[in-house]
């Protein structure tokens, strides 16, 4: 993992001191809310329905046990005993007092964390594959480049007042777990024919009001050009992105209105002018950052496989969890464990202080002191010996963290929605809870197979509904909550935006509607191997629309 050096410490401390001063001036009445608002937003402090909300950055979703313990401590001491892990790999606290913010930021700084650039029209927390550095299918670890981008984008003088927020995601595997094609910049780390590392560069993806799949503007960018090329992209966007309409201000609109060919030409022209400046990265600097992310020295544990076979046979629940929540590791003696924050009927992404402490303890003992936050609102233990799976499972079980549903229909992404969020039009969490309960039975989930449901409570799409296999968008109509369904969305390497089925469903109807879709899928799939998305891609929306809106035909 990356560790702060003196430079980073001094930088973050200075920012905390500055914000302390601003909070004090605000509480003393020297700053008006109008003056203070942009300042608090730069420090991750929002106002929600019930209280302030603090969004803490977890760069590329990687944290240590010590950092997780600190997050637990903050939840306990300054909040109401829990936190919410988000689709941006961050954590949000829902109840902190403004007067406590400086103390919280001090606590975060003590473990090399902060809340900078978790809001505002700047380059936000850089996200990455949550299995980075561990997954067997990885070409190279994307986190060193995410870290370089994090540093370069921190309080960037030129790029702190962009037309709108700007999100960068990096993946290092062909299987895209970071949803790079729905980001402002998506970087796919790969090797060329000569075996050299570089990036395929995508720009202009995003969700929200006008969802767009990103366009590839470069198939292979050498590593040394990462910062110059990114600068060129963001500069073109800063100069030409629309500022007349908040809803048309993201780079996706610029790319769409300018055309991919022309925007590529502009980026390349800008890049030619700056590619040999000081931002061209010497290999030694890349190596120095890369060093922080080297594969840990994991002891050989070949005994695990025979133990696993025995444990599996003895306990079907454990076997189900291993099948569903453990992913192959680069080292055959190890596995990557997904800790589901989606207990049946629970609140997606929420974790109590005790659960955070437990995960931290387990990570310290059994995962080389590393934890990841996934954009699917789960936690990940990246380096667990197969031989330790049983004990890790038993420990997770003690506090409701061993739900065997990673990637299944109850592994639902949901934004906080109208239960917390000042922007929301409808609730998301209760819909997720009811769907989870409806499909919670293990055999039924297993039979349905991979199916990603994603729910947003407003058009901003924090719940990623556009790329849900089944997406649900809550709106307000005549004072009532109404839910629109879209089908066939996907945030992976074959990225698609879901198609809206038709009229929406009331809060009472929505779970039945989802069940209708799932039942129709089970009827029309070729076999169990054809998952929901594949079936949808083969058949299109017709059979599902028919099931949803044509009750008589549905009776059979």
């Amino acid at each position, binding site marked *: 993992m990356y560790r702060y050096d003196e*430079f980073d410490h001094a930088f973050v401390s200075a920012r905390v001191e500055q914000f302390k001063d601003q909070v004090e001036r605000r509480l003393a009445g020297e700053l008006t809310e109008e003056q203070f608002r942009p300042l608090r937003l730069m420090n991750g402090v929002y106002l929600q329905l019930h209280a302030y909300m603090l969004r803490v950055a977890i760069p590329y979703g990687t944290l240590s046990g010590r950092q997780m313990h600190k997050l637990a401590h903050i939840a306990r001491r300054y909040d109401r005993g829990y936190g919410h892990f988000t689709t941006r790999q961050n954590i949000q606290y829902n109840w902190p007092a403004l007067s406590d913010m400086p103390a919280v930021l001090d606590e975060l700084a003590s473990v090399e964390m902060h809340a900078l650039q978790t809001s505002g029209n700047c380059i936000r927390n850089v996200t990455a594959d949550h299995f980075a550095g561990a997954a067997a299918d990885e070409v190279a670890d994307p986190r060193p480049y995410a870290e370089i981008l994090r540093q370069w984008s921190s309080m960037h*003088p030129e790029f702190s007042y962009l037309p709108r927020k700007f999100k960068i995601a990096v993946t290092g595997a062909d299987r895209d777990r970071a949803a790079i094609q729905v980001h402002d910049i998506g970087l796919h780390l790969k090797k060329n024919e000569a075996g050299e590392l570089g990036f395929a560069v995508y720009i202009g993806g995003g969700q929200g009001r006008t969802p767009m799949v990103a366009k590839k503007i470069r198939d292979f960018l050498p590593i040394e050009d990462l910062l110059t090329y990114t600068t060129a992209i963001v500069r073109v966007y800063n100069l030409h992105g629309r500022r007349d309409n908040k809803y048309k201000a993201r780079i996706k609109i610029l790319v769409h209105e300018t055309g991919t060919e022309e925007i590529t030409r502009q980026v390349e022209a800008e890049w030619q002018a700056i590619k040999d400046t000081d931002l061209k990265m010497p290999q030694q600097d890349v190596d120095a950052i890369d060093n922080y992310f080297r594969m840990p020295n994991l002891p050989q544990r070949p005994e695990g496989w025979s133990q696993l076979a025995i444990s599996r046979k003895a306990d079907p629940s454990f076997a189900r969890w291993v099948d569903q929540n453990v992913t192959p590791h680069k080292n055959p003696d190890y596995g990557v464990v997904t800790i589901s924050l989606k207990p049946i009927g629970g609140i997606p992404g929420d974790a109590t202080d005790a659960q955070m402490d437990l995960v931290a303890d387990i990570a310290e003992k059994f995962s080389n002191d590393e934890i990841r936050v996934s954009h699917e609102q789960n936690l990940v233990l990246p380096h667990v010996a197969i031989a330790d799976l049983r004990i890790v499972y038993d420990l997770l079980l003690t506090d409701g963290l061993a739900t065997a549903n990673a990637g299944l229909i109850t592994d639902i992404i949901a934004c906080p929605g109208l239960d917390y969020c000042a922007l929301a039009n409808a609730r998301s969490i209760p819909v997720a809870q009811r769907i989870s309960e409806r499909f919670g039975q293990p055999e039924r989930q297993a039979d349905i197979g991979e199916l990603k449901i994603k729910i947003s409570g407003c058009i901003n799409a924090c719940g990623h509904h556009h790329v849900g296999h089944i997406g649900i968008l809550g709106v307000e109509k005549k004072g009532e909550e109404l839910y629109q369904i879209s089908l066939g969305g996907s945030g992976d390497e074959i990225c698609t935006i879901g198609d809206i089925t038709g009229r929406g469903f009331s809060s009472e109807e929505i779970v039945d509607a989802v069940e209708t879709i799932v039942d129709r899928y089970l009827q029309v799939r070729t076999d169990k191997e054809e998952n929901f998305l594949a079936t949808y891609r083969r058949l299109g929306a017709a059979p599902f629309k028919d099931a949803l809106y044509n009750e008589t035909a549905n009776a059979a």
Partner: protein
Amino acid sequence: MSDISESVAGELWGREGFREDPYIAAETLEETGDAPAVILPLAAWLGLDESIRNNTNRKIGVSVAPGESIDPLLPLLDTIPLIALQFPAFNDGRSYSKADILKNQHQFKGELRAVGDVLIDQVAYMLRTGFDTMKVTHAVTLTRLAEHNLHDAPGYYQPGRGSHTVPGAYSWRRVPGA
């Protein structure tokens, strides 16, 4: 606090502090009489006869709004004594990119000035992207500038101009000079 900001209102700020602004801003050259230093809007400046623009007896600078392109100026930079990039709202960041392009890609040697609603937290950013002077309206900013409180960071994660120009541990970082 307000006393300080009032005493320096209308003055020009540079690294040395506040001073009288030698330039006057006008819509057209005609209305400036024989003022020795004038700033005109981009369209008016571009409309001037070349011989007038190159007249060495008076300085004629050009003011550029965020939505206007600097491209027509690029071939003429050697003859321009001053470019004023406007910040009509604190959240419009286009002029930062233009500053960087003018100073770093095109080696503009004249005075690069930021004009408008500038927050104190932005001053350091402006110096880093290449601005030399500032004509500020924001009272708190004026006060802090008068106190020489620039809100500079202890270091920057990007190359730039201003106070921190010495490379740090990595090629992209900059720390204060010795």
